[in-house]
């Protein structure tokens, strides 16, 4: 039975779904055509190649088509579509529509497809003789990605998850049997407020470009093995690997910057499984880059290089399995939920793992693996060792992050470490010690063979000074108090900085082509220095020891308490600062809390003052969602975020005015009436007020006064916590009846009424309502000081510059080798 539903717009969805099927079909066609174009050498014409290209172009166009349809649906608020309903709302600003693309899995798969589509076109244009085999792999990967979006039932199981599924198909419910159900669905669920951040507009695209670009070195490696062009694939693979590593690294750090700027866990890296998942392939590919260069220069480490390139892409797919299958549910807060695609994702990983393993086994005899050992004092040997250690560090990350996977496979009930951050920090730092020391002294080594005496002297001198400087830094910042391994990493990072700075200065003297790696390593060293100091010695400024009433037992066992409560306009000393919650400003849906920081010197003079505006959103779906605000200094950051604030009322703002007077009085302590004359002072708990005078003929809006009516206002000046406020409550006699109009001074927590005039004594009665402590506006906040965090961010930028320089250099080499100049080692191998 089919019901005719009113108000649905089915065309954009059907068109989008058509594009999905088309993109899957065309990618598959392209992969098959490229496969035959590669294998079928007998054919004289280029028909397979042409077909492959056409398939890929059609695929790219249809991927763009999918994007356009989805954008149309979200932009026009077509909530009959589940995706639009789940991830957007009418109030969502247009520029965040982009973010809502990647709140859901389907949108982020699309993003991946899109980048891979563009990269494929780049390869068709640039890859020349490599096009056929390389594009076979890229198109295959593209087909598998598209299959994730199909969302069609085949043999009773749904394959993939389509962004164009209708709300009534996605969610069962009796309402959907009504033909006019659309008239009840007025708005969507909206975008998670945490994603409503400008970093969320650029972080996911960067990250996914990084993921997508990892298919290129993989495809080259496969093509090289498949076509038995064992050496030629290395050079282009280096360039593309550098690109992938640069983009993915940038994406990861952008994510960490987003977390620092807008999440409230108080830091930039938490070893969350989702973060780890993006770092796993980065580590293996950065190892791969190093051994690829070793092979290019010396002919050593062929297998390691090939293996690391191949496994990196398999690990990208594994990472997407981890984050998208819902398997991390118990260990991560922000993994995607299960869309019933677990096995689909597993199959995706297995296909590419099978290709990798199969080819490596099939070609094991033919691979140009040297039988000769590297020289101990050669650069290639220690680069190789470095790559191995990067691989081991990655192995540890996989091992721990995958604990839920082991539980799933083996039926065990292991839980991740109780203190995961400490666990990861210590073990990963141990690997970092080795890696940083290696990035240092391998710079003094030459390929093939090095003069040992000279090497030991220069290495020794640098190591000595690094140890000295590193330890001084650790001592000055207090890092030495932590696990000793962090001091070792600091020494290693300083060592890496010094040695690479020397290489850089040499580079300026003439060996300019070495600059790229030196700059990248300097950036890496700075990242480590910044991360170590900022994370290791960050200090909670908002320590609070005022908690009372839960017994000594509680006070003893709990750590220094990190949240501090501020009543409005009541300054509190916090570390070196006097902090005051001075007010609010509301820009819907965000509620900004103005927190005033003052630094006062011994003489009571204010040396520094600034206002931070952390914000919270009382979100209907997610409760209170807070974003921090940070005061950036050159050498440290002061980070402040709200952990609790009574702002539920933001949600039902409209209802406020309807409260009756009696209701309102419940918000205050019992009133106190004061009978005073002009010039008298009335004291209250948090200050005093003076009756400055009376003003006759006060006006009250909408109430016209007649001859006999009287309206008098009392001019009160209120002093509270160093602030002065004015209020004019009104006393009125109208048509023989007495009224009064109270005035509120919310900042001071007061409500004032002018309740009586005693004409014979010339006295007036002012009734004071005070808010009890608990009803006064307050915030609970946490403030953290992050020292030297700017090293972390600037290190990232420097590292990216280093990668760019290297990419230019390798690209030049590529065009040189392409034009016929073979590098010497290649001839050697051809002869051998």
């Amino acid at each position: 039975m089919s019901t005719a539903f009113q108000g649905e717009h089915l065309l954009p969805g059907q068109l989008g779904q058509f594009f999905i099927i088309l993109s899957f079909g065309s990618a598959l066609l392209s992969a098959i055509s490229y496969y035959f174009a590669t294998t079928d050498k007998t054919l004289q014409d280029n028909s397979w190649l042409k077909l492959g290209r056409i398939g890929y172009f059609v695929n790219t166009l249809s991927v763009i088509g999918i994007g356009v349809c989805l954008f149309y649906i979200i932009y026009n608020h077509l909530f009959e579509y589940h995706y639009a309903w789940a991830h957007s709302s009418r109030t969502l600003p247009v520029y965040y529509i982009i973010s809502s693309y990647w709140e859901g899995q389907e949108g982020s798969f699309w993003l991946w497809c899109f980048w891979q589509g563009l990269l494929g076109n780049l390869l068709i244009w640039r890859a020349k003789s490599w096009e056929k085999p390389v594009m076979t792999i890229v198109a295959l990967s593209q087909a598998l990605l598209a299959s994730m979006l199909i969302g069609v039932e085949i043999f009773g199981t749904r394959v993939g998850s389509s962004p164009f599924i209708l709300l009534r198909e996605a969610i069962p419910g009796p309402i959907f049997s009504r033909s006019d159900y659309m008239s009840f669905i007025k708005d969507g669920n909206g975008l998670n407020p945490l994603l409503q951040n400008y970093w969320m507009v650029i972080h996911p695209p960067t990250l996914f470009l990084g993921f997508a670009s990892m298919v290129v070195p993989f495809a080259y490696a496969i093509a090289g093995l498949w076509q038995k062009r064992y050496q030629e694939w290395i050079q282009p693979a280096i360039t593309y690997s550098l690109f992938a590593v640069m983009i993915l690294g940038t994406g990861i750090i952008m994510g960490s910057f987003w977390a620092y700027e807008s999440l409230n866990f108080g830091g930039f890296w938490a070893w969350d499984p989702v973060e780890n998942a993006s770092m796993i392939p980065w580590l293996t590919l950065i190892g791969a880059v190093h051994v690829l260069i070793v092979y290019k220069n010396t002919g050593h480490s062929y297998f390691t290089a090939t293996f690391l390139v191949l496994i990196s892409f398999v690990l990208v797919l594994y990472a997407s399995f981890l984050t998208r299958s819902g398997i991390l549910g118990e260990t991560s807060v922000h993994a995607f939920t299960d869309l019933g695609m677990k096995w689909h994702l597993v199959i995706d990983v297995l296909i590419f793992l099978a290709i990798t393993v199969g080819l490596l086994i099939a070609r094991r005899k033919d691979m140009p693996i040297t039988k000769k050992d590297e020289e101990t004092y050669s650069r290639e040997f220690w680069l190789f060792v470095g790559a191995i250690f990067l691989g081991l560090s990655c192995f540890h990350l996989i091992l721990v992050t995958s604990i839920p996977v082991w539980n799933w496979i083996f039926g065990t009930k292991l839980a991740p470490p109780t203190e995961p951050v400490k666990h990861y920090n210590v073990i990963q730092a141990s690997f970092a010690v080795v890696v940083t020391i290696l990035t240092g002294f391998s710079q003094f080594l030459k390929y093939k063979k090095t003069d040992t005496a000279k090497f030991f002297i220069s290495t020794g001198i640098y190591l000595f000074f690094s140890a000295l400087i590193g330890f001084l830094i650790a001592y000055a910042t207090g890092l030495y108090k932590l696990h000793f391994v962090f001091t070792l990493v600091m020494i290693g990072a300083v060592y890496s900085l010094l040695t690479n700075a020397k290489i850089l200065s040499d580079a300026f003297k003439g060996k300019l082509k070495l600059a790229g790696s030196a700059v990248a390593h300097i950036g890496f060293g700075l990242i480590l220095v910044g991360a170590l100091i900022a994370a290791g010695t960050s200090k909670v400024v908002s320590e609070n020891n005022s908690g009372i009433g839960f017994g000594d037992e509680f006070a003893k066992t709990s750590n220094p308490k990190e949240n501090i409560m501020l009543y409005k306009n009541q300054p509190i000393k916090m570390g070196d600062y006097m902090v005051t919650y001075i007010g609010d400003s509301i820009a819907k849906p965000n509620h900004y809390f103005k927190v005033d920081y003052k630094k006062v010197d011994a003489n009571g003079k204010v040396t520094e003052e600034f206002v931070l505006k952390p914000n919270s959103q009382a979100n209907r779906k997610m409760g209170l969602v807070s974003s921090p605000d940070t005061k950036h200094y050159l050498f440290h950051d002061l980070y402040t975020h709200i952990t609790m604030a009574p702002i539920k009322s933001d949600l039902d703002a409209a209802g406020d005015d309807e409260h009756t007077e009696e209701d309102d009085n419940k918000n205050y302590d019992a009133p106190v009436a004061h009978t005073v004359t002009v010039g008298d002072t009335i004291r209250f708990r948090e200050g005093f007020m003076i009756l400055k005078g009376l003003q006759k003929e006060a006006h009250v809006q909408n109430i016209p006064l007649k001859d006999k009516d009287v309206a008098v206002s009392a001019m009160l000046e209120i002093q509270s916590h160093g602030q002065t406020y004015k209020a004019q409550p009104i006393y009125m006699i109208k048509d023989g009846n007495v009224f009064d109009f109270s005035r509120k001074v919310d900042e001071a927590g007061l409500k004032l009424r002018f309740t009586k005039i005693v004409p014979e004594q010339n006295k007036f009665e002012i009734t004071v309502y005070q808010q009890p402590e608990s009803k006064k506006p307050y915030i609970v906040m946490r403030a953290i000081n992050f020292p030297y965090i700017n090293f972390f961010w600037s290190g990232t930028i420097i590292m990216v510059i280093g990668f760019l320089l290297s990419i230019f250099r390798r690209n030049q080499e590529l065009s040189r080798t392409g034009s016929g100049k073979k590098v010497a080692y290649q001839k050697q191998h051809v002869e051998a």
Partner: protein
Amino acid sequence: MKKSSIIGIIVIAVAIAVIISTYSSSSTYGTFTDASKTSSPLQVVGHLVKNKELYYDATKDANYFSFYMTDNRGEECKVVFTGTKPQDFERSEQIVLTGQMQGKEFHASKILMKCPSKYTQDKVEITETKANKSANL
């Protein structure tokens, strides 16, 4: 011995060390009974007791939050957390606590809660109740 074999041995040794250190620092999910028998921190999975008091009063102590939870065996225990009340705590489906017993209270240092996904059933109910209301008018 060849250098490659030495490296091989080192790699295997480090890998084993990593596995052991991971295994030894990994914990198991336990119950409140398990927690009362040991003094080391433990992870307990369970559900919030929704009809008992959730206590958090920032005006008294901004870092004290207590509630009751039943573990997977059905044992109920009072839990004290040093910090503010996590947002949307009432709606949690499942809670993973890390901490240890202090007398009769479980003192949690970390709370990881699983809320019903934004995209699943509970939202439909809202849609439904809304729909019914307007239909009755």
